[in-house]
């Protein structure tokens, strides 16, 4: 279980994350939504110890994240940010094999390689596994990074806009993979999402942020109502139900 209690983060005198307390349900896919500058990415980075909080607590399985040893935590949580630039030349396979570092310290066993190959298969990267990252398109690279996170095989996965750079087909594929990880392997996944309809169709739980504060949280169908979304985004939206899915129409 991931519990966030009274977390603050200030940049230049402004509270980017302002007294946030949420509990991420275990074994569910949770989406963080909200307008630009709402503090979604910052909150995600705080939850995954990439940046320090000014105040408050983030507890994973009851233990404050700063109390964990770095390598111990790396076997429990993994984080992927939205912009990834790597200065060195790596093949897809080499990148994915880095995901096993918390377990193998760089000396991969046969079992580690099995995880690597499985992650590559999961993300349909078999044909590209020996290509260098800089030769790939943005979307292919994104899938390679996700494969690295999969190889890390953690119970909690934090993803900052995993659909960035992906086309329609790969967006759907990505969300199906995340669903599968939750439903079949029991992982807990938290994603920052921009596309409200992807959040609606694939997540179990939605947390809406605005100006650094949690404004609403609830199951996907609770949040997907025009009243709630209008409050979050300050614009007129309509909710239609298509094939049992609530779809938000916001093209005015």
């Amino acid at each position: 279980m991931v519990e966030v209690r009274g977390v603050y983060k200030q940049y230049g005198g402004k509270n980017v994350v302002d007294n946030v307390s949420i509990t991420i349900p275990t074994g569910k896919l949770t989406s963080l939504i909200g307008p630009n500058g709402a503090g979604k990415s910052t909150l995600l980075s705080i939850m995954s110890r990439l940046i320090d909080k000014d105040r408050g607590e983030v507890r994973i399985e009851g233990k404050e994240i700063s109390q964990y040893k770095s390598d111990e935590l790396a076997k429990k949580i993994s984080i992927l940010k939205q912009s990834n630039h790597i200065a060195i030349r790596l093949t897809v396979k080499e990148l994915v094999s880095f995901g096993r570092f918390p377990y193998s310290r760089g000396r991969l066993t046969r079992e580690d390689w099995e995880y690597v190959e499985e992650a590559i298969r999961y993300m349909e990267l078999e044909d590209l596994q020996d290509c260098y990252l800089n030769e790939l398109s943005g979307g292919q690279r994104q899938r390679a990074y996700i494969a690295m996170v999969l190889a890390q095989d953690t119970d909690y996965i934090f993803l900052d806009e995993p659909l960035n750079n992906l086309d329609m087909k790969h967006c759907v594929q990505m969300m199906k993979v995340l669903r599968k990880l939750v439903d079949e392997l029991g992982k807990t996944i938290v994603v920052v999402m921009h596309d409200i309809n992807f959040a609606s169709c694939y997540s179990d739980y939605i947390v809406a942020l605005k100006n650094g504060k949690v404004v609403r949280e609830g199951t996907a169908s609770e949040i997907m109502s025009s009243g709630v979304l209008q409050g979050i985004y300050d614009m007129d939206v309509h909710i239609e139900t298509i094939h049992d899915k609530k779809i938000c129409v916001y093209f005015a």
Partner: protein
Amino acid sequence: MSNKTKLIVLSIAALSLIMVFLFTDVKGNWDYIFRSRSEKIAAMVLTGCAIAASTVIFQTITNNRILTPSIIGFDSVYMLIQTFVVFIFGSTTLTMMNANVQFLVSVGFMVGFAVLLYSILFKQEEQTIYFLLLVGMIMGTFFQSVTSFMQFLIDPNEFFVIQDRMFASFNNMKTELLLVAGIVIALMIGYIVSYIRYLDVLSLGKEHAINLGVPYEKTVKRLLIVVAVLVSVSTALVGPITFLGFIVANVAYTFLQTYRHSYLLVGAMLFAIVALVGGQLVVERVFTFSTPLTVIVNLIGGIYFLYLLLRERKAW
């Protein structure tokens, strides 16, 4: 060719150059020649290893392949110390001072400077590594200005003593320091070995390193202090020569095509030995001491630097 083979080839090249340097062109008293040449070889091997290792580590930490530790002003701290001693106490003090004492004082000051810089950097957690570079650059320039100012004021004869320290030279190194320097460098390299796997992950960048379980701040702080010690030792031994590190690190990256630091570090060190011993051979036997080795290193390094800059620009 696998990376192991490549390293073996490099080792053979380095060893053969050392052999050529030691055993050819012997005229006169063999004992004397052998002794002075082995001391030179020892100094070159130590300096080469220290500079290669410090540059590779520094470039990995900063995720930037055209930086060298000299950017954060280590060389200028060294020159400031030398000039300051001459300015206050006169050149005789500098030349008469116990070499080991002077060595430890210089190393102490440089490491102190490094620790000061890092504490500024890590006091505020939002600061990036580039902030450290910027502060280092500004302080380096400041130290240089203070150094030049003092050099203007002192007696021209005294200035020659300093000038002598300003250029790296293996004809004029402090052989008394070899033992101490050797021990310090061996200790540092032993320490690096325990961090070698973290270095591989650090080259992915800060966020990935944290995600994969590297205690980032602690590791970077310690590695930067190792870099400071290595640069100080090599500078105190033969003078400022960090351009060499830039060349050998980049040649090693291109030659080995890997991210693994176990290969990169050894490769860069071997290239440094090849470059120094080979360069010194050319200086002594071809130019008959008319050109100092640093001039050649800086000329080649400068051209290579420009080439890499132009190529990088195209790549983006």
